[in-house]
C-alpha cells in the first residue's frame, strides 16, 4: 500500500516551469534520492509529494489512490507521511520528548504508549539520555537526530527528507549518512531523499533519480549511474568525466585515431553511421611511460602530458593525444609521477565507457 507513484507531475509558477512532467515510482520500502543542482525542482517535487504544493499537472498516487492532482490536494496532515526539513524545524518550545511524541499524541495513543515509544525511538537514535532537554541546548547533530526520531516514531507510510544534512559540518554529515541508511535498514520505510550532494545520495539510496531543469534525466542504482550514465548531464554531474565526440560507423566507434568495436560499449548499438558522444572516466584510462602490450580490444595511443595537479589521493593529469587537440583528464596513483611535457601512452577500456546523449 505504500507504493508511491508520480505521474506526469508538473509545477509551473506563472510561466516558469519548475517541475516538468516527472514520472517516478517507488516500491514499498525503497529508498530513492532526488539528486540535482540547486534550482532543479527537487524540493518542489518533494513538497508536492508532501501535499504542501499543489501540482499544475499530473498526479501523486499512493497505494493506487490519487492524493494530489490539480484542484484537489489531500492536506499534508492526512497523508500518513513524515518529513525531515532542511532547518530541522524542531519546535524550540517543546522538549526533545515532547517533540518526538507530538505525532503520536495526535494519533490519540494512550499516554503510556506514547511515552514507551518515544523512549524506544530515542534509544534507537542514541538520544535517550537527552529526552528532557530543550532544542536550544542541543548541538546541530543532536537536533538532526531528534528530527529523525520525530519523523520515524509515527511509522509513516512514506518518509520525506529535504536536504537534511546540508546544515551539518563535514564529519557529522558523513556520520549521519550512515545513520540514515542504518535506520532505513531497520524500519524499511519508503523514503524520498532530496539532496544536491552525490556522495550522500550514493551512500543512502537504493536508486537515484538525477534531476536537471525540472526533469528526471536518469533513474538507476548508484553504481549504474556512475558507470553507465545515459545523458551528458548525468555523466558530468556524477563524478568527473571526459566527454569525447566520436563517430559510429560499420559497428566501430572511432575518435582521434582510436577505434574499437561498438559492441564493447553497448551490445545493443546498431550499425547506423552517426556522430556519438562518449563518457570516459579519468580513472578508466591507463597511463604508461612506454607503449603497453596491446590487450585485445583495448586501443592504445601516444600522448603528451600538458598539465598536472597533485590532489593527495591521486595525480590529476591532462594528456593530449598526439595528432589531436583533445585534452583528456587521467588520474594516476601518487607514486606515478610524470613531468609536464613528458611523452606517455594512454590505454582505453571500451567496457568502461558509456554512450551519452
Amino acid at each position, binding site marked *: 500500500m505504500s507504493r508511491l507513484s508520480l505521474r506526469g507531475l508538473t509545477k509551473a509558477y506563472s510561466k516558469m516551469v519548475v517541475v516538468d512532467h516527472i514520472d517516478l515510482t517507488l516500491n514499498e520500502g525503497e529508498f530513492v534520492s532526488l539528486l540535482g543542482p540547486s534550482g532543479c525542482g527537487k524540493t518542489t517535487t518533494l513538497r508536492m509529494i508532501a501535499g504542501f504544493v499543489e501540482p499544475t499537472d499530473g498526479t501523486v*498516487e499512493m497505494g493506487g489512490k*490519487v492524493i494530489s492532482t*490539480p484542484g484537489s490536494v*489531500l492536506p*499534508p496532515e*492526512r497523508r500518513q507521511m513524515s518529513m525531515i526539513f532542511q532547518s530541522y524545524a524542531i519546535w524550540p518550545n517543546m522538549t526533545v520528548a515532547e517533540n518526538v511524541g507530538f505525532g503520536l499524541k495526535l494519533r490519540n495513543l494512550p499516554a503510556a504508549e506514547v511515552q514507551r515509544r518515544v523512549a524506544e525511538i530515542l534509544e534507537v537514535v542514541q538520544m535517550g539520555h537527552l529526552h528532557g532537554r530543550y532544542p536550544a541546548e542541543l548541538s546541530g547533530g543532536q537536533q538532526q537526530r531528534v528530527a529523525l526520531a520525530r519523523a520515524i516514531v509515527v511509522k509513516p507510510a512514506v518518509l520525506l527528507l529535504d536536504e537534511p544534512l546540508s546544515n551539518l559540518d563535514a564529519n557529522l554529515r558523513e556520520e549521519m549518512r550512515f545513520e540514515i541508511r542504518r535506520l532505513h535498514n531497520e524500519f524499511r520505510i519508503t523514503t524520498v531523499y532530496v539532496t544536491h550532494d552525490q556522495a550522500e545520495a550514493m551512500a543512502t539510496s537504493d536508486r537515484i533519480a538525477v534531476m536537471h531543469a525540472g526533469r528526471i534525466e536518469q533513474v538507476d542504482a548508484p553504481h549504474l549511474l556512475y558507470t553507465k550514465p545515459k545523458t551528458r548531464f548525468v555523466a558530468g554531474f556524477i563524478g568527473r568525466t571526459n566527454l569525447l565526440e566520436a563517430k559510429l560507423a560499420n559497428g566501430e566507434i572511432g575518435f582521434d585515431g582510436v577505434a574499437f568495436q561498438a559492441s564493447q560499449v553497448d551490445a545493443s548499438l546498431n550499425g547506423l553511421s552517426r556522430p556519438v558522444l562518449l563518457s570516459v572516466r579519468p580513472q578508466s584510462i591507463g597511463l604508461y611511460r612506454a607503449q603497453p602490450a596491446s590487450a585485445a580490444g583495448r586501443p592504445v595511443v601516444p600522448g603528451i602530458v600538458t598539465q598536472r595537479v597533485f590532489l593527495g589521493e591521486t595525480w590529476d593529469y591532462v594528456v593530449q593525444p598526439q595528432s589531436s587537440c583533445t585534452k583528456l583528464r587521467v588520474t594516476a596513483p601518487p607514486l606515478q609521477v610524470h613531468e609536464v611535457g613528458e611523452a606517455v601512452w594512454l590505454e582505453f577500456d571500451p567496457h568502461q565507457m558509456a554512450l551519452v546523449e
Partner: protein
Amino acid sequence: MPDTAASLPEPVGETRGTRRLGLLGRLRHVEPVALVWLMLLLALLFLVVAPLAKLFAVSFETQGTGEFTLSNYVAAYGRARYVDALVNSLTLGLASATLSVALAVPMAWAVSRTDMPGKGLTWGVVMGAFVMPPYLGAVGWMLLAGPNSGAVNRFWRWATGAEGPLFNIFSFEGLALVIALHSFPLVFIFVKAALDLISSEMEDAANILGAGTWTTMRKVSLPLVWPAILGAFVVVFLETIALFGTPALIGIPARINVVTTQLWQFFEYPVRVEVAAAYAMPLLLITVGMIVAQKLFLARKGFVSQTGKGGERRPIKLGPWRWLLFTWCALVGLLSVVMPLGILVQASFAKAWGRGISLDNFTLRNYQHLIFEHEMALTSIWNTVWFSASAATMAVLIALLVAYIVQRRLVPFGDALGFLAMAPFVIPGIVMAIGFYAAYASPPVALYGTAAIIIFAFTARFLPIAYANSAAAVRTVHPEMEEAARILGSGRLHAIAHVTAPLLKRALLGGWLIVFIVATRELSAAIFLVGPRTRTMSVLLYDLSEAGNFEVLAAFGGLLLLITLVLVGIGMKLVGRDFMLRRT
C-alpha cells in the same frame, strides 16, 4: 513497536483514472483563510482607507450642501497667519531635528564606541526620555523656565541680580528645545544601532594610515552611519511637525502658531472641518513625500548602511576626554529627565509651587483633589486604560493575521493588506483624527463622543507599530516549523495553536505593550475625537493646563508618570529591558 499506521483516509480520487473532483470536493478544500482575508480587508478599509478618502473628499465640499468647491483651500491659505503657521511648523521641525541630532550623536558614539564611564546611566537617561509622555516634559519646562516664576529664571535672578530671565521657554527656541529633549532618543537609537555594526577594523584601518581618534570619527565612523543620522533626522522632523501637545502647551501662550495648533483652532466653534481637511493636506503630502524620498535615497546602492560584518569590536580609549563626553550625557539627562520631572513632582506636592521645597509648603491636597473630588480625573484614567487596551488588542490581532497571511503567501494580493496596515505610518496622527472625524463623527455613523471612535482611531494610528512587530515575529518562525506539525497529522489551525502561537507569544505581548503604552499618552488623535464623557488622561492634562492651576496640573502629571512607570516596569519584566527601544 506496533504498527499504527492506519490505512489512508478516504481517497480523494476514486482510482487513479479520476483526475479531477466535483465542485463539492473542491469546496471541501477551500481554506477558511479566504474568509479571514475578506474580513481583514473590510477592517482595513474601515480603519485606513475610508477616513483618508473622506478627508480628501471633504476638503472639496461646501459645508452643509456637500457641493464641490475649492473655497476651502482658499480659506485655508488665504490668510497670512495660516501660511505663517505652515512656515513655523517646517522651521520648528528643522530646528528640533537639528538639535536632536546634536544632542544624541555624541551620546550614541560615546556609548557604542568609547570607554566613556556611566554607559548604563546614559542608557537610563535615553530610556527615561523616551518613555516619558512628551507633554509632561513640556509641563516640567513651563515650571522650570517660565519667564517670571520659572525656577531656573528665579535662580538666575537671585544669583546674578539680573533683571530679565535667563531663558524664556515660551519662545520659538524654547519650543524647539523642549521637543528636541524629548525626541533625541530616536536619533540615539538609530545611530547607536548603526555604529554597533561597524567593526573596529574599519577604524584601525584609518588609524594605521595616520588618522587620530578625532579624525577617524569624523572621516570614517560618522560617514558610515550617515544614512542612520539622516533617517533619524527625517523621523524627528516628521514627528515634530505632527506634534500637537507641546506646541499647544508652549506655543499657544507664546503666540507661536503651527499647523497642528491652527488645525485645532479650525475645530473651535463653529467647527470648520472642511477647511481643516484642506489645511491638513500639506502636512500629509510632506510626510508621505519625505518618507518615500528617504526610501528611494537609502535604496540607492552603496548608501545602504553597513550590514553586520561581525569583526572584533574594542572601545576607543579616550583618556581624560571621556569625562567631557560623560558631562555631556549627564547634562542631557539633567535637562531632559531629571529637572523637568523633579520640578513636576515638587510642584505636585506643593501648596504653591513657586515657594520651593519646604515642609510648610508640602501638601497632598492636589492629589486628594484629583482622586476624590475631580469629576473627570479617575474617569479619564479608566478611559485611557480601556481605550488603549482595546486598541492594542485590535491592532495586534489585525496585524498578526495580516502579517501571517502576507508572509505565508496564503492568498494572492496579500501584499495589499500589508501595505494598508503600514499606510498609517505616513499619516500624522492629527490628520488621521480629522479623517475619522470627517468620516464617522456625524450621521449616518454618528460615532462622535463615543468610545468607539477613539478606539478605532487609536487602532488605525498604531497599526503600523503592531504590524512591524508582528511581521518581525512571524518571520522568526520558519514555515517549516508549522509544516513539520502538519505532516505529522495536525491541521493548519491546530498547528498554529500548538506550534506558531506559543513561539510568538512573547513577541506579541511586547508589541501589545508598546501599542498600549503609546496609546495611553496619545494626545493629537484623541483631542479631536473626545466627547465630554470620553476624555483621556492626555486630553484632561491639556484641559488642566488651560485652566492654569499648575499644582493640580503637576499632580495629574505625577499620576500619569506613575502609570507610565508601572506599565514600562511590567513590560521590562515580561519582555525584556529594552523592549521599547527595539527597532522592528
